[in-house]
């Protein structure tokens, strides 16, 4: 850190050598990652159809075809639904839960609730997805059976078999799956000494619980909330397994999303170039989402 102001060549070489063990692995993996991204970008402008690679350059042909497809429009609409409805309710719920666990609970309840809502993170979605498709079955599925049993027949729904609402029910599974993760992240950002002291002070001042939440806690955990929102946005954007297992994009392609279409285009339709193009679209959308976060993180990091 406190080097002499004038550095000799030897000293510079020394810093490079010194930083190499720290940076080398990261640099290697990053280089591979970006190399593959460039490759995908090129393939999206090549004419690869079928099982054999074809690197003939055709420009934006596949992007033009993509924009013409009705399925692509459905996907974009659905992805926007996922991004908005999958993220904000999860954050709100998680904030409420984390706050509740912090202020009002007994130690044992906290541990119980945390384990309870965290297990979906540890479990294979191939399996929990199958369970959810059984939960949602309209005629004999779990939810409707329960509703019938307790007499709430007017609440009985068609869930994922109704093309108009199916995506919303899928998003609900996403919230179920990520809630525990979100609570953990928020809880850990509660746990700073400064914040704890501020809350104690607010309690002494006799502030109401809601007031403490919105005027003391939320402004002080902006960073945690922002990280959470970005992580959730990206998971929602990349969402694949929930749709794949529970509806496979159906009814028809009404619940299809970009990631699933990309999978189908590449491996089922053998339109590898189109699949690569869809991948680039997902990546571009991710960039748009990530930019504000990266700017924020960048400022915090190098302040």
């Amino acid at each position, binding site marked *: *850190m406190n080097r002499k102001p004038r550095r000799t060549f030897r000293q510079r070489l020394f810093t490079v050598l*010194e*930083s190499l*063990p*720290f940076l080398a*692995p*990261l*640099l290697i*993996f*990053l280089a*591979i990652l970006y190399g*593959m*991204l460039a490759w*995908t970008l090129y393939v999206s402008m090549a004419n690869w159809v079928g099982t054999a690679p074809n690197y003939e350059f055709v420009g934006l042909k596949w992007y033009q075809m993509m924009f013409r497809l009705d399925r692509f429009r459905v996907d974009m609409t659905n992805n926007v639904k996922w991004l908005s409805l999958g993220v904000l309710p999860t954050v709100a719920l998680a904030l409420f839960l984390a706050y*509740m666990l912090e*202020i*009002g*609970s007994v130690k044992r309840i906290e541990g119980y*609730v945390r384990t*309870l*809502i965290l297990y979906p993170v*540890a479990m*294979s*979605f*191939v*399996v929990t997805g199958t*369970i*959810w498709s*059984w*939960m949602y*079955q309209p005629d004999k599925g779990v939810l409707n059976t329960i509703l019938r049993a307790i007499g709430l027949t007017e609440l009985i729904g068609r869930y994922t078999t109704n093309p108009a609402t199916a995506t919303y029910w899928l998003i609900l599974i996403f919230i179920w799956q990520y809630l525990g993760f979100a609570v953990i*992240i928020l*809880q*850990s*950002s*509660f746990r*700073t000494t400064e*914040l*704890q002291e501020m809350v104690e002070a607010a*309690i002494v001042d006799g502030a109401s*619980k809601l007031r403490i939440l919105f005027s003391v806690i939320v402004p002080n955990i902006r960073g*945690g909330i922002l*990280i959470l929102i970005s992580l959730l946005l*990206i998971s929602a*954007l*990349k969402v694949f397994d929930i749709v794949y297992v529970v509806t496979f994009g159906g009814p028809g392609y009404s619940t299809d999303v970009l990631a699933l279409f*990309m999978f189908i285009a*590449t491996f089922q339709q053998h339109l590898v170039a189109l699949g*690569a193009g869809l991948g*680039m679209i997902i*990546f571009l959308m*991710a*960039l748009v*989402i*990530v930019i504000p976060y*990266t700017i924020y*993180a*960048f400022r915090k*990091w*190098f302040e």
Partner: protein
Amino acid sequence: MRIRGLSTQLIVLLVTLVLTGVYVLPIYVMVMTSLKTPVEISQRAYLIPTRNLQFQNYAEAFRLIYPSLINSSIISFAVTLLAVFFGGLGGYYLSRSRSPFVRVLFILVGVALYLPYQVILIPLVQLMAKTRLALTYAGLIVSYLILNVPLASVLMGTFFLSIPRELEEAAQVDGANRLQLFFRVVSPISLPAYASTAIIVFTQVWNEFLLALTLSTPATTTIQVKLAEVKGSFVALYNIQMASALIGVLIPLSFFLFLGRYFIRGVLAGALKG
């Protein structure tokens, strides 16, 4: 911070009950299904317990998934250890250097975290084939490292940022170089960060399906691939699949419990004060 009060207690109780319902129900259905026969599953009476409990489903499931549990453990633990190690090194550098190069690197790493990995599936497989790593443990391990080292670097770096520099400066005066600083001073006090990063990486690798499907052979089949396989395509043995999943979840769950107490004091704890 604890605020006690009757209304708060009531809300807590109510919310806990609702959560219990929402989160126990799927597990209940899962356990019930794992104990049924295929014929009973066709009846779709998911909530009704069977009178004829098929505990041998678990024996059957264990027999089927045992090798893949070993494979998954080898791969996940290897990736977790290496990713956390490399991530720690990279993250430390990111958090300590202020050069323009590192600023660019930071952005590149940040963006890399959000690559949808389906985008790189085909080039990755081609790369693995060219380097002759495909179809081996090493191939899967390296692939997962490529995807997880940037993430681990950012997570670890975030934590290192919160460590006061005074400690390092004191050691530096004593003549320690960077690596010694990192291994002797910084790493020992960063164990919680290592633990949380390990949990995140482990979960990602353990649950990954698509790459494992593409790059594995019968000798390296992971648990996720096996779980998709035990159901079969023409007979639909959901009971065996559910039993397998319940056995399979024990490993990540015990790993969580083992490291869990660190998790809450996790990476974000100190670093993001506002």
